[in-house]
């Protein structure tokens, strides 16, 4: 406890607190720009890290890490441009709510959910990290494959209008994910002899195109006909007491879900947030309101993706294993300044671990502070006339796509998928289903391949209990639920037709 207090005193010294603030604020900024994720933020920090003490570097990096995940929600809600893949699910209800003139409320809910998710996952990190890491290691290739199979069934949840169209978009996403080098032998697939296509279609430019650029094209049609965004309500932006009650019931379980998924290496925020969204919808009494601006549809993915932050640090700190791209970059950055994340850090430099824990907790409150301040300010962005706002967003989209790899090719991908996304939108195909296909396809393929390689072709291992059993049961339930939902939609549509006909 004394050590903890010492760390507390260390972090709240003005200099260190300033560094933490820079980390968090920088993270929020980076996260809110399309295409820039926490990993880019950490790489941008790298030159500065050389010049500060080890513990200061750790504080800045952890602030950046947490801030970036939250930042993605801001642009997702305001301009339908998810800044990071993990914010894509937030857009599904966040953007419609902002379009109703309640952008402030959407941001408020996202902030509260993010903070709660962060605090719950950091608590898990502090209290039960080693035990959880052991469990996560039991995930071998068959377990991962089962998880991916289940995750693919989430496509049904994001296909509100038509299950068939959702599946088509999902399959198209899977197809897009196969372009490039195959993960098993390194053969080129669907590259037509074009060197650039060996890269395949990187997920972030596809994401920017399908969500952000397509949205601009859709809005473009409405320009001049009416006000695009209704006047924004800037009062009552915080959820009411009764709303808070229902929010908490969603936030707590989805935070735990996010934490658990964060711990499993290679899973990450995008899968967690879509899964959380899907569960929130499934357990809702009015699932049909999801996709039209339901605050629970904002809270669930935000709690879950911020939940992954603490979770992702569990394998990094206890085993020295990075669970995803962001933690891998963090690992690299910390090693450059001489910190070796891993089990030895607890033994050799406990003061470093305590400083990290304290700064992670403070980072959550800084997110809350920054978020609640921005709730009244940021919606004003939407008052900007579209002829100014749209070109700015479009430019940001292209800069984001470019800056990821400094690659003009990625800008082209964003543009092409923007046009594809436009047609998907126009014809009722859910873009989120396509993205799920692009994210999950290559993962599922890799894990299936590894299963079959390590078992020399024995596919029965794919069903080895107990973990895979759980996921396949979940997948079956998810499919049954989706079919029931689809039947209900059909019935309702039938009634409407009959009424209008008779």
């Amino acid at each position, binding site marked *: 406890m004394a050590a903890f207090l010492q760390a507390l005193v260390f972090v709240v010294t003005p200099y260190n607190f300033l560094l933490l603030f820079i980390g968090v604020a920088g993270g929020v900024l980076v996260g809110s720009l399309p295409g820039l994720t926490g990993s880019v933020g950490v790489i941008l920090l790298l030159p500065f890290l050389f010049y500060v003490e080890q513990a200061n570097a750790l504080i800045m990096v952890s602030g950046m890490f947490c801030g970036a995940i939250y930042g993605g929600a801001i642009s997702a809600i305001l301009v339908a441009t998810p800044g990071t893949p993990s914010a894509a699910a937030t857009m599904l209800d966040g953007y419609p709510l902002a379009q109703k003139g309640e952008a402030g409320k959407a941001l408020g809910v996202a902030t509260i959910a993010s903070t709660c998710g962060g605090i719950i996952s950091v608590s898990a990190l502090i209290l039960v990290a080693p035990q959880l890491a052991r469990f996560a290691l039991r995930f071998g290739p068959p377990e991962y494959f089962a998880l991916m199979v289940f995750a693919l069934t989430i496509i049904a949840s994001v296909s509100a209008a038509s299950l068939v169209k959702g599946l088509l978009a999902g399959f198209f996403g899977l197809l897009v994910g196969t372009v490039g080098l195959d993960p098993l032998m*390194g053969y*080129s697939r669907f590259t037509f002899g074009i060197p650039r296509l*060996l890269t395949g279609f990187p997920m972030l430019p596809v994401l920017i195109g399908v969500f952000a650029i397509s949205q601009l094209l859709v809005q473009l049609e409405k320009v*001049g006909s009416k006000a695009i965004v209704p006047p924004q309500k800037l009062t009552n932006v915080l959820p009411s007491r009764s709303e808070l009650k229902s929010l908490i019931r969603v936030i707590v379980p989805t935070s735990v879900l996010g934490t658990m998924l964060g711990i499993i290496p290679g899973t990450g925020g995008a899968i967690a947030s879509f899964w959380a969204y899907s569960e929130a919808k499934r357990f809702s009494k009015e699932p049909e309101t999801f996709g039209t601006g339901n605050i629970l549809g904002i809270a669930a993915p935000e709690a879950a993706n911020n939940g992954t932050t603490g979770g992702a640090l569990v394998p990094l700190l206890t085993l020295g294993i990075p669970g995803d791209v962001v933690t891998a970059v963090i690992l690299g950055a910390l090693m450059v300044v001489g910190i070796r994340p891993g089990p030895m850090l607890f033994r050799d430099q406990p003061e470093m671990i305590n400083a990290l824990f304290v700064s992670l907790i403070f980072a959550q409150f800084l997110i809350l502070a920054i978020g609640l301040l921005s709730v009244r300010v940021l919606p004003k962005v939407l008052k900007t006339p579209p002829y100014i706002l749209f070109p700015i967003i479009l430019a940001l989209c292209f800069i984001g796509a470019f800056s990821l790899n400094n690659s003009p090719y990625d800008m*082209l991908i964003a543009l092409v998928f923007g046009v594809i996304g436009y047609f998907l939108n126009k014809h009722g195909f859910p873009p989120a289903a396509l993205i799920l296909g692009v994210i999950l396809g290559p993962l599922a393929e890799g894990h299936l391949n590894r299963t079959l390689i390590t078992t020399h072709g024995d596919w029965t291992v794919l069903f080895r209990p107990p973990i895979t059993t759980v996921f396949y049961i979940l997948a079956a339930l998810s499919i049954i639920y989706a079919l029931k939902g689809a039947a209900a939609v059909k019935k309702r549509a039938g009634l409407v037709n009959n009424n209008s006909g008779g």
Partner: protein
Amino acid sequence: MSRFQKGLTGCLIGAALAVLLSAGAFAGGEAEPEIEPDYPTRSIEIMVPWGAGGATDIVFRTFASVIPEYLGTSILIDNQPGGAAVPGYTEALGREGDGYYFVAWATPSLTVQHMRETPFSVDDFVPVINLQTAPIWILVPADSPYETLVDLVEAAEADPGRIDLGNAGAGGGTHLIALAFEEEAGVEFNHVPHDGGGPAVIAAVGEHVDAISVGPPEGVAQMEGDELRALAVFAEERIDDFPDIPTAVEQGIDFTLGQWRGIAAPAGTPQEYIDHVHDAFKATMEDETFQTLADNAGIITDYIGGEEFIEHVEADYEFWGNLIRERGLGERY
């Protein structure tokens, strides 16, 4: 269409056009190189055809912080990741050798040319200096039955193709070196590709594979935490930082092979510029501040320069060509 609407459409089309034009501009801009007496007058770009934060990228970023003192200018790192480095080098083909554009040149830059038809060839780039040779080591879970490299080889001998040897990516350095090793040892492993060194380490810690071939710093934290053990390192001598890990040679298997990482210049770059850049990198490698940074990042520097490096690259190109041809890897042979 209202005037307002037209204006907006114009704006958007304009922005899109600007993007496309700027994309085109990257390929353009040709001019004959002339020797500048006060070279370098601006930043020097180094194209790294792998992602930011990756092993090669970290090497150059570590250099970038110290080298301006010796180079007389800063270096800009231009990451062009993906597609097994082919797109990156293909773009580099369109760049002139004016002394302001260099490329990262490493083992995979050669192997990829044997794996598939590439628009560029080994003759399009002149090797300048080797900066690092990264060894590969064989790691097993802490409670693995294999105590030495010989144990692992004997197990593979007894049960050909059934002992899993994980690597960091199909057709990548860790995979190819593992293949070269089994040739040398005369056994056959079951090679399991992963999406990078990190996931390979995770698979080993979780005991989902029998052993993995990866390079430091991959696995260091797990060895310190008694999760993994090293059976051998494929280097000529034991690594300074890891004096307890025996080489394969010591265990009676005459095998040393690592992945080197250096710099090359587009063919046609004036020798004066190449020498200047070579000297600056060499001086940086000897700089104390740099050595501390490199130690922290686990970078084992290995200077090979001039003609010697050119020959080294040629010999390596032959070696990998033979291996890849024999094993029928990739789609070229």
